[in-house]
Each structure stands twice: as C-alpha cells, then as structure tokens.
C-alpha cells in the first residue's frame, strides 16, 4: 500500500470511528447509570435523522432550525421512552428490562415503518456540508472534518458536565449506588431522565451527522450502527466516556484498516466488530478502560 492510499484509508477510518464514538458515548452514559443495554438507542438515532429530514423537506425549515428542533424533539422522545418502558422496571430482573428495551426497539421500528414508510428517503444535505477537500492527494469530505470536531466538543462538554457540575456528581453517585444517592436527597428519577435526555440528544446528533455522511434514511437504519456502537462502548469499558470514544475510534480503525490491508476479507467486514469485541473481552473482561467489580463473598 502506498502512503497516499494508507493516509486515505486512515482518514476514512478516523471519520467513521469518530462517528461511532459519538453514538457510543450516549450508550455508555445510559448503561453506566442504569446497567441497561438500551437496544432502542439505535432507533432513537434513527428518529433524530427522520425528524431533521421532515423539518427540512416537509416543513421547509432552514437546516439549523430543523437540526435544533430534531435534537429537542428526540430528547423529549428519549426521556418519554425511559418513563414508559424502563422506569416501571427499575427494580426488576435485568432480563425484563432488556426485553423491554428490545420490545421498545421493535415498536419504534415498526411504528417508523408505518409512519415514515419502509422506503428509504434521501436526506437533504445542505451545501455547507456537501463539499469535498483534497489535501495532499487525500480526499476528505466536509462532513468528515466536521464529525471529529463535533465529537471532540461533545466529549469535552460531557466530561465537564459529568465531572464538574452538581448534576454530573449526582449522576456518578446514582451510577455507583442508587440507594445511597437517594439518601443524599438526590431525585434519582430526575437524574435518570437527565441522563436519558443527554443520551438521546447525542443519539439525535449522531443520527443527523450520520445522515449527512450517508444521506439515506430508512426505518431500520439504526440497528447495525446501534449494535456496533454498543460494541464500541463495551470494548472501551462500559460506563467510561473516554472508553466509549476510544472504543469507537478503535472499531472504525479495525473495520476499515483490516479491509485496507487484507482486501480479500471485505465480505467479512460485519464480523470484525464482533471479533474485536470477543478478543478484548477475553483478555480484559471489563473492556479497555473498564473497572473491575468483583463480587464480594
């Protein structure tokens, strides 16, 4: 592989990886606090994309307004989802909550099929993001430049919220010990709602950026990205925000660089994420940056 091809592949991988990272953060926040694999996260992501689409193409809003509204509505949707599908099960066995998440995911997908139609829609990409840059023979789409920046900014904002604000402190408290958090007069439901709000907003942003990069919407578009980003979060160490970013980048790199180096494996690309996952888990069962929580006997 010549240097230019390598650089091109590397840029491709970083661009995909930072998108994975962005979505994985939302996953990891929700999981970190509730220990819930939110299988519906990918569907919330899909809703974000569609809302922005309808904002621009049906209601003819300017794109920035459509994006903001889409994020807000998706956030409300995510908070509502937690209320309806997860809160009643907070003290139930894990499998019940997970089934509820799967059920919610099915419901959202099927509703989307009925409401939005199963046929893919083309996402209207504003000219602002449609450009393309060539730097030293390496082609970089404008969105691919924006995504890592957005991811980095959001990462900083999140780290600030979680580590520097009172609410963030409460989130960390809830995630270690719900009952002890209650004893601190923390309104656990509110904190969980806020977490879901942040997670859903991130999903919406992820969905919109995804649609800008791959301008096609369909009701089932969230399933695979959702699963892969969850894997990214697990690989990085679930519950760790930095881990999610690391996992996302790593996944993007592995997926694309493996193909770059071994083109005959392209057909197996969908399996790379899982192979990475299993290898990491076997070596470090709690993920790269995860903390060990053994059971005291």
């Amino acid at each position: 592989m010549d240097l230019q091809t390598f650089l091109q592949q590397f840029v491709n991988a970083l661009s995909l990886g930072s998108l994975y990272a962005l979505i994985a953060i939302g996953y990891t926040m929700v999981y970190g606090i509730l220990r819930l694999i939110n299988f519906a996260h990918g569907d919330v992501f899909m809703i974000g994309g569609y809302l922005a689409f309808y904002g621009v193409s049906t209601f003819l809003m300017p794109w920035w307004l459509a994006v903001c509204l889409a994020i807000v509505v998706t956030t409300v949707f995510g908070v509502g989802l937690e209320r309806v599908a997860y809160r009643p099960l907070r003290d139930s066995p894990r499998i019940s909550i997970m089934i509820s998440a799967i059920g919610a995911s099915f419901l959202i997908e099927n509703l989307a099929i009925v409401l939005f139609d199963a046929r893919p829609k083309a996402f209207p990409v504003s000219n602002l993001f449609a450009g393309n840059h060539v730097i030293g023979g390496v082609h970089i789409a404008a969105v691919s430049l924006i995504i890592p920046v957005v991811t980095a900014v959001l990462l900083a904002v999140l780290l600030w919220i979680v580590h520097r604000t009172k609410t963030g402190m409460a989130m960390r408290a809830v995630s270690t010990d719900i009952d002890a958090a209650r004893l601190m007069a923390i309104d656990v439901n509110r904190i969980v709602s806020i977490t879901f709000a942040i997670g859903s907003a991130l999903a919406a942003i992820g969905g919109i950026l995804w649609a800008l990069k791959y301008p096609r919407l369909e009701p089932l578009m969230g399933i695979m990205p959702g699963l892969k980003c969850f894997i990214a979060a697990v690989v990085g160490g679930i519950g760790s925000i930095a881990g999610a970013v690391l996992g996302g980048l790593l996944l993007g790199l592995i997926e694309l660089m493996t193909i770059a180096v071994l083109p005959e494996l392209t057909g197996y690309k969908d399996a790379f994420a899982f192979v990475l996952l299993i290898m990491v888990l076997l070596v470090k069962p709690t993920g790269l940056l995860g903390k060990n929580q053994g059971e005291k006997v």
Partner: protein
Amino acid sequence: MLSIKNLSVHYGGIHALRGISLDVPAGKIVTLVGANGAGKSTTLNSIMGLVKAGGGSVCWNGEEILGSPTKAIVESGIVLVPEGRRIFPNLTVDENLSLGAYARTNKDEVEADRERVFGLFPRLKERHKQKAGTFSGGEQQMLAVGRALMSKPKVLMMDEPSLGLAPLFVGMIFDIIRQINAAGVTVLLVEQNAKAALEVADTGYVMETGTIIFSGNGKDLLVDDRVRKAYLGEA
C-alpha cells in the same frame, strides 16, 4: 420527635419487621440493639423510604412520613448513615461531602458546615482531594458521618457506625455521637456493639427477629441480666 408505630415489613416471604413501635424524643440518643438479622437495618431503611413498609406509621413532628419519597424525608431533616458506609468510592472526599449537602442551596452555610466537618475529622481535610474508595475502613466511616452532617440533620440515624472499626476508632465514633447530640441533633443508633451503644444512649430498645422484646433506660439495660447474657457475651 420521631415516633414509629406498628411498623411492618416483608421481603418476599420473610416477615422482617412484625409491627414494631418505638419513640425517639427530640434531643436524645436512642439505640436499637439486637442480633444479626433482627431487623434493625430494616427499621432504619423503612423510615427512610428505601424499603417499602407493609403497614404502620412513622410520624415526624406530628406528620406522617411513611410513603414519602426518600428525597423529601432527607429534606425534612432525617438523615441516615447507612450500614456498610455506602460512601461513593469513585468520588473524592470533597464530592462526597458536597453530595451530602445536595439539597441545600445556601453556599455559605454549606461551606461553613464543610469546615465544621473538617474540624471534627482533620483526617478528611488532609485528604480532601483523594478518592474515597482508597480510604481505610475507619476513614470511610468518618466520611460517611461527615457526609450525613453536611445535610444539616435534625435526626441522625446511624446503622452500625462501629462496623469494621479498630477499637480506637470505635471509642472515637461514640465520642463524636455524644458531641453531635450535644449540638442538638437527635440520634437513633443501631449497634452490634451493644455495650458501647447502651452506654451513650438515653433509651435502648432490644430487637429480636423482627420484634422489640424489651426496652428501657440505657444504663439500666446495661446491667440487665437478659441483655448481659444474650448480647454482651457475658455468662
């Protein structure tokens, strides 16, 4: 005053509290002693609303608080130092203390209280930036008590504060209980260490398998034969 009537709790098939009644007069120290699994922690947890009671009532200054959310109970001035400390190990000492004052809005008062806690436990001040999980058991217990004091309690309930503490610390904890009480805070104390507990208490209740079997003045109970035999390990 805190008054508990006929409180009853089930965990699935286990009848953990079988209708217990006790009074905690304002400004006093009341202690609850009894064997492992007698239901002492359950009593405290159900007062705090962490465990759902099956029946009975908990009145605080004439108001029924049973069934209120934990948040409201803490804000009304009842605070629990839970069994096993339950500090937040990934958070620093400062953050743990701030969480204790989570519901309070007056920053100056909170800072003043933080200084007061540091005065009580200079050890915490030395290490205020350290993650609490790296503390020794005794230090963690100080933090748990300090954290509770940060919420400016009117009633401080402590669940086995001497658990896992070196005898030296045990003595110190009981001194602090006296100090806190002297500052006007009502204390409800649950202890395995019945001897020390009864020594500081105004009133003692003895629990056994979900019921209160007898009660009385702390000093009287200390010399009570039944107590000596069953809980003080004296023949």
